[in-house]
């Protein structure tokens, strides 16, 4: 009986201590790196070639620093978030501005991660707002936890260096004030120009 009580007590204490690391980390800091996670290979061939992860080497899951670009803008969103819904046309317009500028096209790429959203729900968002860039589901909030559980919409700017290393240069909650201003900020902070 004594042993049983003692072991139970130890088990409870052990559970208390092991649960502590589950507490959320902070969102990626400017100057730091992205946490280590992979996204599934895009199903859509346009998305695949846009991200440059369609080669034979990258047919499976990929990591964001493997995207063929100098800068990747990551939007953390949810189909269920009213601000993300309202922001969708602006993010689309940001995409067009980049794609229509020969100096930026191919250098800055966009992708979205739908936190707590299933594949189906991300698909609904993509269709509803005609989102032209790749969106990925994070149905079980795994990536969201790794990213420090930011509120939405949250934008992360990532600079990918020629040697394959990367740095976060932008990490901020909330809609951007103006598409043009945001893009200029991204260009300046990333050192692209």
């Amino acid at each position, binding site marked *: *009986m*004594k042993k049983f*009580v*003692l072991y*139970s*007590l130890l088990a*409870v*204490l052990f*559970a*208390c201590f092991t*649960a*502590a690391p*589950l*507490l*959320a980390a902070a969102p990626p800091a400017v100057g730091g790196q992205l946490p280590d996670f992979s996204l599934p290979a895009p199903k859509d061939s346009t998305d695949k070639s846009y991200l440059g992860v369609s080669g034979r080497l990258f047919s499976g899951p990929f990591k964001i620093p493997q995207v063929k670009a100098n800068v990747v803008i990551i939007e953390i969103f*949810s*189909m*269920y*978030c*009213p*601000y*993300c*819904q*309202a922001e969708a046309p602006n993010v689309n317009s940001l995409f067009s501005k980049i794609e229509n500028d020969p100096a930026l096209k191919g250098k800055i790429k966009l992708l979205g991660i739908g*936190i*707590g959203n*299933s594949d*189906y*729900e991300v698909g*609904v*968002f993509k269709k*509803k707002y005609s989102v032209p860039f790749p969106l990925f589901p994070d149905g079980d*909030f795994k990536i*969201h*936890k790794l990213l420090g*559980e*930011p*509120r*939405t*919409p949250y934008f992360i700017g990532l600079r990918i260096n020629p040697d394959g290393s990367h740095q976060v240069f932008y990490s901020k*909650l*909330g*809609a951007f004030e103006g598409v043009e201003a945001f893009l200029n900020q991204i260009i300046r902070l990333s050192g692209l120009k």
Partner: protein
Amino acid sequence: MKRIFRSLFVIAVFTAPLILPPAPNAYGLSDAYKGNVYDTGRLKPTDSALKVKVGQKAPGFTLPAVSGGKVSLQDYHGKKNVVLSFVPAAWTPVCSDQWPGYNIVKDLFDAHDAILLGITVDSVPTLFSWTNQMGKLWFPVLSDFWPHGKTASEYGILRTDGVSERALFLIDRQGVIRYIDVHDINERPSLEMLIRELEKLK
């Protein structure tokens, strides 16, 4: 000695929930709500006894709508399929997420000739302030505030603390219940499942 161990054990069991961090609630994170969403922590998944079942006639109701006037289930009889979305309370994490999602899929409800009725046990003024944060909603939001939770109670989804379960009822044009999902209050029901059930109505 035995007694000391036993007391220690009892103390440990009862203090564990205080030491353990509460399960982080990752819903209701939209910046639209700023810091106004109340964190309920993790709740007992369900806490009521359902009083209706699939195949039965749905209990009727007439409730005040946030947009003014009253809405009855009877209004849709013979005209439209009805999805009732009960959510526990305004300004809580999962609920603040669920309706904004439905708000962008009106076309999916239209395609299945269905109307959505959102219901909570909150008062009309509270529902007004809360739903205003979601943008303009295309579906009626009804208040089951007084007599408190009467409709929720008739469906058997009024929890012991006076809020309703997070529940979906799909009612066909004849007023017959075709699908019930009394969901774990801590989780958001998947949209896909609801749409699949709507598809079955054809």
